[in-house]
């Protein structure tokens, strides 16, 4: 099918932007339908997200999670895989963090931080590797297996946290705490502007990951192979790229990436392993990856947008109780729908506008 031609910037920026606006418009309609004022909601959200130190800090904290999840899903996407299991992979990675932290509890954070990263990455990679293996070697549909692994992760973690890791005498379901000295360094200790926000140095790791992702996908032989596989597995086979090996490696790397969410939360913010600490970040990552079209710049922007949504949403919970976290999930779903599945819906009208503005294209003969 010949797609209507669009200048590259319109393809990469304008169309996704329009799709997002559309998602928000519909979200706004839903908000209206339950009797709330969407414009005031937006106002409150913007203030909550950027208007003051703690708010901005929270926004950046959420953004950190979403960058990692978004990059993880993007990496899989580049290889033509849909990793819906980011949520479960991040959850399981919490085990890695807490095990290493409790084993060396008290160790200075400068040494603990890299240890946490490695431990979390190992657990996340393992949890993602299994569905990857099943897809590569057994042909099991990775979407279904990763979703099922999310469910399985919930059961496993629920059991481990409540029955194994919970110290005797504690009523709430959580693990023993990590020593204050070992926790990931929070930014507020040297940037007082952030007051009580939990944003920590994992944020810098996320930014570094963005650059690293770009380099990996577009500047290495591995990235070349990943992209070839994603576009045309048969041609990749022809080119001597092992589809099976690549699928497994990519999934493992994807799991390792999203595992950093565990470092951020278990190692930094909560300082112990609690139930459901991922809080939906894995699913947001899917939206972020699609909005960002699998490209680090897009992922960064989309992650910031959702960070703003989450923090703004918390602010809204105080001022406008009618709008809840579920509304955010709804908007998230709409974003995935419009940017991912109906991405070309607005293409023709937009292309027509461009055609009116520019000279006719020469025939290809």
């Amino acid at each position, binding site marked *: *099918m*010949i797609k209507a031609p669009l200048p590259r910037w319109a393809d990469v920026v304008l169309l996704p932007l329009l799709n997002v606006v559309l998602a928000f418009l519909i979200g706004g309609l*839903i908000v209206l339908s*339950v009797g709330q004022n969407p414009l005031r909601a937006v106002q409150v959200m913007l203030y909550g997200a950027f208007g003051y130190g703690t708010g901005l800090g929270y926004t950046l904290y959420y953004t950190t999670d979403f960058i990692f999840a978004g990059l993880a899903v993007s990496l899989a996407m580049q290889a033509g895989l*849909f990793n*819906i299991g980011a949520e479960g992979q991040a959850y399981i990675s919490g085990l890695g963090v807490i095990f290493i932290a409790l084993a060396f509890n008290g160790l200075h954070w400068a040494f603990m931080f890299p240890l946490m990263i490695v431990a979390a990455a190992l657990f996340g990679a393992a949890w993602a590797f299994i569905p990857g293996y*099943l897809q590569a070697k*057994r*042909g*099991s*549909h990775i*979407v*279904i*297996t990763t*979703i*099922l*692994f999310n*469910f*399985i992760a919930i*059961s*496993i973690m*629920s*059991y481990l946290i409540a*029955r194994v890791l919970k110290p005797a005498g504690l009523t709430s379901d959580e693990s023993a705490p990590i020593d204050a000295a070992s926790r990931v360094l929070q930014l507020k200790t040297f940037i007082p502007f952030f007051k009580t926000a939990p944003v920590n140095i994992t944020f810098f790791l996320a930014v570094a990951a963005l650059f690293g992702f770009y380099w990996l996908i577009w500047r290495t032989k591995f990235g070349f192979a990943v992209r070839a596989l994603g576009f045309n597995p048969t041609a990749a086979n022809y080119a001597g790229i092992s589809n099976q090996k690549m699928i497994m490696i990519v999934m493992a790397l994807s799991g390792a990436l999203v595992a950093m969410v565990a470092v951020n939360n278990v190692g930094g913010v909560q300082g112990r392993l609690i139930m459901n600490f991922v809080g939906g970040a894995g*699913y947001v990552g*899917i939206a972020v990856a*699609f909005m960002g079209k699998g490209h680090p710049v897009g992922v960064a922007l989309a992650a910031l947008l959702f960070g703003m949504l989450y923090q703004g949403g918390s602010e809204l919970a105080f001022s406008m109780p*009618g709008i*809840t976290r*579920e*509304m*955010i*999930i*709804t*908007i*998230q*779903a*709409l974003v*995935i*729908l419009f940017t*991912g*599945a*109906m*991405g*070309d*819906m607005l293409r023709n009208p937009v292309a027509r506008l461009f055609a009116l503005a520019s000279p006719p294209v020469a025939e290809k003969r």
Partner: protein
Amino acid sequence: MDFTDIINILAQTVRLSVPLIFACLAGLYSERAGIVDIGLEGKLLASAFAAAAVAAVTGSPWLGLLAGIGGALLFSAVHGLASINFKGNQTISGVALNFLAAGLTAYLGTSWFKRGGFTPQLSSGQRFGPIQLPYAAEMREVPIIGPIYSGLISGHSLLTYLAFLVVPLTAWVLFRTRFGLRLRAVGENPKAIDTAGISVTLLRYQALVITAVLVGIGGAYLSIAAGAGFNPNMAAGRGYIALAALIFAKWKPWPALLVCLMFGFLDSLQLRLQGIKFPFVGEIPVQAIQVLPYILTVILLAGFIGRAVAPKASGLPYTKER
């Protein structure tokens, strides 16, 4: 364990397999027509919510059923638009719609009913309760046949009986009618349909409508027949299990019924295992039991199937070639 226990387990198996049967057959129509529908889970949720909400507000389970089907139709319409008209990626559309259903049902549920996502409890008049077949009470004393008739065959809701009727109906439609022939053709080679002058789009939408109706009944069953209202996460992965069952059954109606019954059976066993103390191991943690159906599904997907071959045009948007 005596005969009565067995009857009870079997009856429970039947009850637990009903939503799976509906979801599985729903997926069968879509997949046979060449549309991948990962969104069964979301549709189950949406229709369960719609059915419970309307039943609570109007007091009529029939209106609730209609609402359930309506909710599923709405989601199917969006999926159809995305997959057929906009030729988008069907997997993503399904996943997005699942999230949308989860978010919307929770949001609207809390907004409308203010019970943290639950709909009001339904009284027996507002649900599809068990139907006693004629002479069920009298037959109970008859040896062997009696308990089977009164315990296993009688006493199910209307929707349950419907589920078991839909299976032979589907087999008949698929293989003995013109519509079924064309449906199967469009999933294998849509060009063959197009060049015969039949609209591929129309056929696929028709399949989606049937899917919606079936899965809508399945979702309604969850909240207004099996249960007495909607609770968040009501679907609990059944939509995905139904998909796995469909693949395992190689997209055929009678094997699908068997696989769904098997899952129902395991579900029924699982409920009985909770709280029982085994020698050596002690009590099995509830999470371990809850996780069994999911692990089993993974094993199914990985193990016994090898590479099941889907209808050839599955998941591919149809475009007239240049």
